């Protein structure tokens, strides 16, 4: 459209205008093209091509074609274009390349191939984007899923990994274990947790156990009596405390204490019983000891001696689900022990004083309605009440919850969902003043772990093909004589069989010894001896089996059952015991430095078990299997995997089993 042709007869001004506008049009077109050519992902690919062409001279570059890269995962509804810029992510040779070209750290891509999982499944962010900002490396408006930090990424692991303790996740596993420990599922419906795991004492026997002073103090502040209490602080007003005490204290009739002649009690003997039985395995005293059971530091100020006596003699009458075994003690021993506990640990904790006056019965009705409204019966069973009161919101999609930012903004906290959950878990009243949820008094790292576990509960269901779960196993219910003994001595409070057994707030059972195949691991004689008289196999461990004073006939029954039923045929087998093999084994023993952890003769380390007299304790087939793959039999074990061959393992086993027992010397066990 030359000005000459069309413009003939058109004014000069217009011709100038047309020239100017044409130029402007050209400029905008050029601008658009340049803008597109300089779009972020193309720039990065250009740089990567430069990196590669430098290598091409040395002949080490890969395929040169590029363009937008994309992983399309229809079943996860994800489109990830991250590798358009992160070009070297799967190339092991790019460890030293500058970002964004660097190889992915660790071995994650071996188990989570990008073409099967994409990138955003684990990292979050906006996979469809092709710019740094758009990909939500940092939070951007209108994209609710920013990229996750390392700890918060564990929450994303949890959207597919539904097990209680997914491998490689510290925060997630801990958080899930804490949610079990604090009975979250008593009030909240939580996917993956069911009502059976709620564990708290029944309240039927409370009136014969404690007095009004203790009840008042406890309701006001449980941690005032028990610093590690699992029960949260319900932030009750004075009047509510009174009302609840009035409701909960009147006697309920059925249970009664045993009669005992306390004047004859000998507290010194009681102390001996206490130490011999190793109560501290489960009960902590003054901050030292196990946390499986309540601390006994002030138990004398809580419960009467008659009650302690009755409890020790038969705990299961009062709390059928308690973890505590029924020790085999004589009545005198029980009496002495009760007196000792009451005398030695009878101080009231500081600040825990409450009035001992009986509460007014008129408040009992009010107390009952508080008991209902706050959902007490959801954790604590009480006759006349249903077992569950899910008074709290479902946690089904808590990881996608839309939060009210106001409470956080008011406190100067960035209003993100993780912050909101963390604040709520640490102190529910900080988010909503009238909240019914108790304050659990989590430490910061505990609250963070619970937050991670909560964030793994998302609205969008992961397809079943992508989900891993703990195998569903029916609970193990031992039968017959064996079963009666297991129930009496509560073996499953510390040990697991078939996946059943108590799990502590760390997510692991108290004992690292699972009994599933114990009959193939230890000899029958050793089992019988040990059950009757447990001792510290690994001297370095603080925990060891308490002395339940199991009778010899009982130990025989237990050992017999374990040796004949709790076996794994794959572990049966023998090892040669000829001198040459044993010598070979000793040579291997020395070469691999096993004495660094194990005692042989009079010297060695304290990390692993003493190997003297190993043949009387260990079984050959098991020893070989253990040496070959320790991690398989005990996750997280300290025993190293030396990559032994079968013959080497057999030789070592032969050596270990040939070691004579140590002469009885003062060893300081």
């Amino acid at each position, binding site marked *: 459209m030359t000005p000459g042709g*069309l413009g003939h007869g058109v004014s000069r001004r217009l011709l100038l205008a047309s020239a100017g506008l044409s130029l402007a049009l050209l400029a*905008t077109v050029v601008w658009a093209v340049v803008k597109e050519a300089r779009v972020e992902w193309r720039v990065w690919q250009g740089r990567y091509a430069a990196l590669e062409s430098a290598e091409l001279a040395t002949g080490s570059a890969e395929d040169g074609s590029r363009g937008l890269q994309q992983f399309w995962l229809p079943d996860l509804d994800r489109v990830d274009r991250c590798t358009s810029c992160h070009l070297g992510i799967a190339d092991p040779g790019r460890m030293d390349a500058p970002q964004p070209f660097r190889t992915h750290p660790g071995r994650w891509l071996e188990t989570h191939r990008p073409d099967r999982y994409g990138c955003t499944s684990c990292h979050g962010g906006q996979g469809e984007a*092709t710019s740094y900002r*758009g990909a939500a490396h940092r939070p951007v408006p209108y994209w*609710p899923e920013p990229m996750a930090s390392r700890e918060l990424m564990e929450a994303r692991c949890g959207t597919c990994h539904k097990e209680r303790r997914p491998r490689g996740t510290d925060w997630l596993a801990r958080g899930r274990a804490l949610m079990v420990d604090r009975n979250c599922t008593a009030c909240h419906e939580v996917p993956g947790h069911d009502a059976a795991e709620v564990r708290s004492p029944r309240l039927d026997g409370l009136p014969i156990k404690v007095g009004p002073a203790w009840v008042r103090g406890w309701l006001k502040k449980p941690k005032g009596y028990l610093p590690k209490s699992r029960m949260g602080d319900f932030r009750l007003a004075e009047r509510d405390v009174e009302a609840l005490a009035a409701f909960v204290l009147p006697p309920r009739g059925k249970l009664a204490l045993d009669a005992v002649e306390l004047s004859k009690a000998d507290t010194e003997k009681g102390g001996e019983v206490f130490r011999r039985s190793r109560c501290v395995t489960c009960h902590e005293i003054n901050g030292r000891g196990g946390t499986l059971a309540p601390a006994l530091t002030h138990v004398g100020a809580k419960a009467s001696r008659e009650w302690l006596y009755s409890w020790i003699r038969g705990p299961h009458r009062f709390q059928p689900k308690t973890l505590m075994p029924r020790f085999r003690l004589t009545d005198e021993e029980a009496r002495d022990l009760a007196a000792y506990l009451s005398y030695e640990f009878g101080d009231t904790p500081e600040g825990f004083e409450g009035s001992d006056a009986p509460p007014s019965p008129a408040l009992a009705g009010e107390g009952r309605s508080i008991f209902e409204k706050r959902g007490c019966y959801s954790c604590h069973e009480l006759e006349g009440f249903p077992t569950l009161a899910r008074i709290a919101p479902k946690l089904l999609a808590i990881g996608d919850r*839309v939060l009210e930012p106001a409470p956080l903004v008011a406190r100067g906290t960035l209003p993100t969902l993780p912050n909101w959950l963390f604040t709520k878990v640490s102190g529910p009243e900080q988010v909503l003043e009238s909240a019914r949820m108790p304050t659990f008094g989590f430490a910061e790292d505990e609250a963070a772990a619970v937050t991670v576990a909560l964030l793994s509960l998302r609205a969008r269901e992961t397809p079943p093909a992508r989900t891993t779960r703990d195998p569903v196993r029916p609970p193990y219910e031992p039968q017959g004589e064996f079963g009666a003994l297991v129930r009496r001595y509560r073996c499953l409070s510390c040990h697991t069989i078939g996946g059943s057994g108590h799990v502590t707030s760390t997510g692991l059972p108290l004992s690292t010894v699972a009994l599933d195949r114990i009959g193939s691991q230890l000899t029958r004689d050793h089992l019988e001896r040990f059950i009757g008289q447990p001792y510290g196999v690994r001297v370095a461990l603080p925990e060891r089996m308490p002395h339940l004073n199991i009778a010899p006939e009982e130990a025989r029954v237990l050992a017999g059952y374990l040796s004949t039923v709790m076996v794994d045929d794959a572990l049966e087998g023998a090892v040669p015991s000829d001198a040459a093999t044993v010598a070979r084994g000793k040579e291997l023993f020395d070469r691999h430095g096993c004495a660094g952890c194990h005692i042989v003769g009079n010297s060695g380390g304290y990390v692993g078990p003493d190997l003297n007299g190993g043949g009387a304790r260990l079984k050959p087939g098991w020893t070989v299997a253990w040496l070959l793959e320790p991690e398989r039999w005990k996750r997280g074990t300290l025993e190293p995997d030396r990559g032994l061959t079968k013959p080497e393992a057999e030789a070592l086993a032969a050596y270990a089993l040939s070691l004579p027992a140590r002469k009885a010397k003062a060893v300081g066990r």
Partner: protein
Amino acid sequence: MSNRVVRSIFRVGWPRTRQQRLRAMLSSLVLHVHPTRVRVHVLRPSYTLGLGLVSFYLFLILTVTGLALMLYYVPHPAAAYRSMKDIEYAVTFGMFLRNAHRWAAHGMVAVVFLHMCRVFFTGSYKPPRELNWVVGVVLLLLTLALSFTGYLLPWDQLAFWAITVGTAIVAYFPVLGPQVRYLLLGGHEIGQAALLRFYVLHCLILPLAMAFLVALHFWRVRKDGGLSAPPDRLHRRVPAWPHLVFREVLVLIAVLVLVHAAALLFDAPLEEIADATRTPNPAKAPWYFLGLQELVGYGAIFGGVVVPTALVLALLVLPYLDTHPRGVGVWFAPERRVANAVFAVVAVAVVAVTIVGTFFRGPNWAWVWPW
């Protein structure tokens, strides 16, 4: 040989003589919408401001960019939002196309409104141009409808709730309101049926209607004797080629430059994906309906039904009420003082409530100062 091919397409060569220039207008499908000669008066930019032409060009730009976008956009709730993200991030010139489309659309709504004002203030609706004015009013409504149906397609929170409010206003119309809403949405809620209907309306039904009416609009201009002019300027004419065609090309280039610049400088918004369970606060209709939403805030029937219906009816019957031939062809002719004043007041009021609804209303529709 090639000469014969060229001659078979372009019957008249590049016009050089006066006679060729006149014949050029008649020999081309595109060009023959022009008369062979035009009044000098209407060529002046200060007369028409080229607004009608700009509207038409914007419509063309929207069609072209829209066609390109149609190759990538998927009109289903499960895929629409992601296809928008694809256009933004994974289509070469995708964002540019989307921006151009959106800003041309907003521009077209504003420009057709201004074009209507121009036509009114120059009295160019008076006989014999009554029908063309009515067609123009219908075109205005079609423009709004096209913008409204297109607004839903990104399927983000902005789109979803704007259309929730917009279709709720439709339901307030007496007797047929709820039925019309049901028909529009293909159901009771905004879901996959609504998205598909809006898509078909936006890409097919309404553009076809608009194309037909635009053609009618242009044809009527010719039949009504060309663009209006005052009585003393009716007879000075010049050949359309080059004077009219050249200016039209200039305006085209100018419109392209502006749309491109806008597309390069400002990105069209895309909020989070539509979520029927969460209402953003505030939830605003598209800007050209915010005046309506502001009025609706005072009373749903009054603001949503009475006022808009009255305005549209007034516009439609206008040329049949005011047939006095004086004051045509000049801006703000003194003979038409009253009419101009009334229209100006109404136009300013419409703009004012729209401004209020856009800038002065915040969460809970409470009054806020925008600075």
